[in-house]
C-alpha cells in the first residue's frame, strides 16, 4: 500500500528505479554540500563573532590551493552527474525494437490514443505489464506534454511533427497521466489514467473491446489506412503505373529502410519522414523521381496520417514473407 503521505512517487516502469537512483545520489550530494556550507558558516559566525567594536582582524587575501580544491572537486562531481544523466537520457530516448506501437494525438484538452489492433481511447491508456510500448505523438493545436510520473517519462507533444517516448510497465495498477505543457484554459483537466494490466487481463481487454468505458473498437489503423491509400489516390502513383510510367516510388518494404534522395543525402524512412513526404512532398525528393506529388496539407487529419503510416508500415512486414501487401488496398 502507498503511505498516506508519500515523499517519492511509485515506481512502475523499468526506468523508474534508475531515475530514482540518480535522484537519491543527487540528494546525497546536495545534503553533503549544504551541510558542509551550513556548518562552516555557523561555526565561523560563532567562533569569530565580534567581541569588541575595535576589532580589526588580520586580512587574508586568498589561497590558490583552496580555490583549486573547491573548483576541481565540484567540477569532477558535476561531470559524474552529467555522464550518469546523459546515459539515462539515451535509454529514455531509445525505444526497444520489439515495442508495441501506439499513436497519441493531443488536442485542447484531451488525449486520443490509437492501438494497432483498432482500440481507440480518450484520456486513458491500457497497456500490459512487461511489454515495451512506444508512443508516437503529435498535437492538433498547441504544444502539450505527455507525462506519466510513475513511469518517469515525459515528452512534449508538438503540432506539426512527431515526437516519441517509450516505457515498459512493471506493475499492474492505475497511474496518473498529466499534460505538463501549459496549453490553455483547461490545461489542468487534460489528465487521464494509464491502466497497466497483467498480460492475461490485457488479452481479455483486447478481446472484449468496448466492455470498458471510453474505449471504441474499430478497424485496425492499417486497415483504415489501406482504404485511405485508395481513396486519396495514393495508389495511382505508388502502386502501379500510369500509362506505363512509374510516377512515384513503390512503398513496399520502405518503412525503416534507408532512402537515397536526389540531393545525394540518405534518410531513414521513419514516421517523421513519411509524415513530411505526405504533407510537404517536395521537401525531400527520392533519387530518380520528379517532384510531381501534390501536398496533402489540410486534407487529411492527424488521425488519418497515423492510419496511412500504419498501412505503409504494414507493407514492410508483408514483403518479407510473401512479397505482397498483407492488406489489399
Amino acid at each position, binding site marked *: 500500500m502507498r503511505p498516506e*503521505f*508519500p515523499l517519492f*512517487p511509485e515506481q512502475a516502469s523499468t526506468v523508474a528505479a534508475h*531515475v530514482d537512483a540518480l*535522484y537519491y545520489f*543527487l540528494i546525497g550530494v*546536495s545534503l553533503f*554540500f549544504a551541510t558542509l*556550507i551550513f556548518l*562552516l*558558516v555557523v561555526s*565561523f*559566525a560563532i567562533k*569569530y*563573532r*565580534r*567581541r569588541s567594536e*575595535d576589532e*580589526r*582582524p*588580520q*586580512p*587574508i*587575501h*586568498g*589561497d590558490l590551493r583552496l*580555490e583549486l580544491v*573547491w573548483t576541481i572537486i*565540484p567540477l569532477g562531481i558535476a*561531470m559524474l*552527474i552529467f555522464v550518469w*544523466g*546523459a*546515459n*539515462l*537520457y539515451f*535509454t*529514455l530516448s531509445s525505444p526497444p525494437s520489439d515495442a508495441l506501437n501506439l499513436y497519441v494525438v493531443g488536442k485542447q484538452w484531451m488525449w486520443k490514443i490509437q492501438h494497432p489492433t483498432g482500440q481507440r481511447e480518450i484520456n486513458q491508456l491500457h497497456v500490459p505489464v512487461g511489454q515495451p510500448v512506444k508512443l508516437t505523438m503529435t498535437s492538433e*493545436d*498547441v*504544444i502539450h*506534454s505527455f*507525462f506519466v*510520473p510513475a513511469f518517469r*517519462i*515525459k*515528452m512534449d507533444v508538438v*503540432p*506539426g511533427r512527431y515526437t516519441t517516448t517509450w516505457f515498459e510497465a512493471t506493475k499492474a495498477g492505475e497511474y*496518473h497521466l498529466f499534460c*505538463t*505543457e*501549459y*496549453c*490553455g*484554459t*483547461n*490545461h*489542468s*483537466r487534460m489528465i487521464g489514467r494509464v491502466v497497466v494490466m497483467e498480460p492475461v487481463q490485457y488479452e481479455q481487454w483486447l478481446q472484449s473491446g468496448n466492455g470498458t468505458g471510453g474505449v471504441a473498437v474499430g478497424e485496425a489503423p492499417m486497415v483504415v489506412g489501406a482504404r485511405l491509400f485508395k481513396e486519396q489516390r495514393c495508389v495511382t502513383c505508388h502502386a502501379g503505373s500510369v500509362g506505363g510510367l512509374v510516377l512515384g516510388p513503390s512503398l513496399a518494404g520502405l518503412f525503416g529502410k534507408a532512402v537515397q534522395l536526389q540531393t545525394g543525402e540518405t534518410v531513414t524512412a521513419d514516421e517523421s519522414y513519411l509524415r513530411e513526404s505526405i504533407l510537404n512532398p517536395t521537401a525531400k525528393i527520392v533519387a530518380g523521381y520528379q517532384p510531381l506529388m501534390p501536398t496533402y496539407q489540410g486534407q487529411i487529419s492527424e488521425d488519418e496520417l497515423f492510419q496511412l503510416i500504419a498501412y505503409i508500415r504494414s507493407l514492410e512486414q508483408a514483403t518479407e514473407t510473401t512479397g505482397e501487401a498483407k492488406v489489399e488496398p
Partner: protein
Amino acid sequence: MSTAAIEARDVFPTPPESREHYLNVNYGVRSWLLTIDHKRIALLYLASITLFFFLGGFFAVLIRLELLTPAGDLVESETYNKLFTMHGLIMIFFFLVPSIPAVLGNFLVPMMIGARDLAFPRLNLLSWYIYTIGGVFTLCAAVFGGVDTGWTFYTPYSTTYANSNVMLTAVGVFITGFSSILTGLNFIVTIHTMRAPGLTWFRLPLFIWAHYATSLIMILGTPVLAISILLVALERALHIGIFDPALGGDPVLFQHLFWFYSHPAVYIMILPAMGVMSEIIACFSRKRVFGYNFVAFSSVAIAVLGFFVWGHHLFVSSQSVYAGLVFSVLSFLVAIPSAIKVFNWTATLYKGSVSYQTPMLYAFGFIGLFTIGGLTGLFLASLGLDVHVHDTYFVVAHFHYIMVGGAIMGYLGGVHFWWPKMTGRMYPEVWARLGALIIFIGFNLTFFPQFVLGYLGMPRRYHAYPPEFQILNVMSSAGASILGVGYLIPMIYFLWSLRYGAVASANPWQATGLEWQTPSPPPTENFASTPRVTEEAYDYAPLEAKVA
C-alpha cells in the same frame, strides 16, 4: 581617508535636515519627475518596483489560496491562468530584473567609483520613463481582461490560440526591455570612463564587477527578447508564419529565441545580488573578500557561460539528443563559478570579526537558500532526471530558491545595508532582525514542500490537482502567509524610519568603500572633491597598522 578619521567625525552625527543634500536640495513633484540625479532616479525606481512587488505578491496570494484545495473552486480556470501569468510577468520584468541594478546599482555605481553621476544622466531618467510606460501597458492588459499565456508566451498558443490581451502585454514587455538596455549601457560606459583616479579595475568593489557582468547580459540578451516578442506580435496580428506549424512555422524555434534571453535573465537577477553579498559579508566580517579575483571573474564567467545554456529548457521539447548533451554539460559548467562564490564568501568569515546586524542576517539567509537553489539546479541540468521533473513543481521550487531566496534576499539585504546612506536614517534593528527571520522561515515553508510535490509529479500551472497532493500544497500556502507578513514588516518600518529613525552617520557600519566617505544622505554632487584611491577594496586593515 583613514577609518579612524571617519569615526572621529561621526561621534555626533548631525540630523540630515541641518544641511543641504540630494533629498532637500529642492522640492515638489517637478523636481523629482525631471531629476537627472542618479540617486533620485534610484528612488523613483524604488517606489515603482515596490508597487509592482506588492502587486505581484497579491497575485501570488490568490494563487496559493486557490491551491489550498485540490478542486479549482476559488476562481475559474481562465482566471487562475491569468493570475500566474501576471504574477510571473510582473515579478520578472517589473520587479526582479530592475530591482538591484535600477535601485541599488543606480544609487551606488557612481558613488562606489567616486563619480558625480552616471555617464548619461538623461538617458538614465529616460530608462525610468520607458520602464513606467511598459508597466502601464502591461497593467492595462491586466485591467482590460488579463492575459493567459504564461510569462513564457509559448507558441503557437500565444500566437494563434490565446483569446486574451497578448498584444498589449507583448508591447508592454517589449517597451520595458529598452529600459534594461539603457541601464546596462549606462553602467558599462560609466564603469569604463568615470572611475576616480587610482581606482583600477582590481580595486573596484565586487558590487561593480557584478553590475558590469549584469550590464553585459542586459545589452546583449534583451534585444533578442524584443525580437522574439516582435515576431510573436507579427504572427498574431498579420499571420506571418514563423512559429505556428499551421502557417508553416516552427513552434520550438520560439523556445530557443525566448530562452536565449530568458535564461541569461536569471543571471541578470542573481548576479547583482551576489555583488551585494560580497559587500555585506566583507563589511560585517571586517575582512577583505576571500579570493577577490576568483569572485570577480566568476561573475564574468557566469555572464558568458550563461548565454550558452538556454537549451536546458528544451530537454523534452523534441530538441535533438546531441543538442541536449551539449546544453547539459554547459549547464553543469555554469554551476562551478556559483560554487566558487559560495565557498569564497564562507572563507571570508574565517578569522573575521563577524557581527549579526540585519544585512548580515540576509547574507546568511542568501548563502543558505542560494546553495539549495544552486544544488537543485544540478538535478535539472541532469538530462535523464530532468525528463521526470521538467515542468513540475520541482522547477517552481528551484527557481524560487534562486529568485526569491537569492535575488530578493540580496535585494533586501542591500536595501537595509544602504538605507542609512540613502535616507540618512537608521531602520529599527530589532524589528529588522525579526523581519529577516520571518521571511527566512516563511520562504522555506512555502517552497521546500514544492520540491517534494514536483518529484511526486505535480505539474506546474495546474488550477486543480489530484487530492493526494493536498497536504504539501496546504503546507506551502501556510508558509506563503508567513512570507507575506514577513515582507510587510520591512515595508512598515522603512516608512516609519524616514521620520522617526535614528540619525545615521556617514558610515554607520564602519565599512570601506567610497560611498561611505561622504555624508548620509550624500550631497547632489556626491563628493565635495573627487576622491583619490590608494588602496585596494575592502581594506579593513588592523587598527594599529592604520594609526601607525
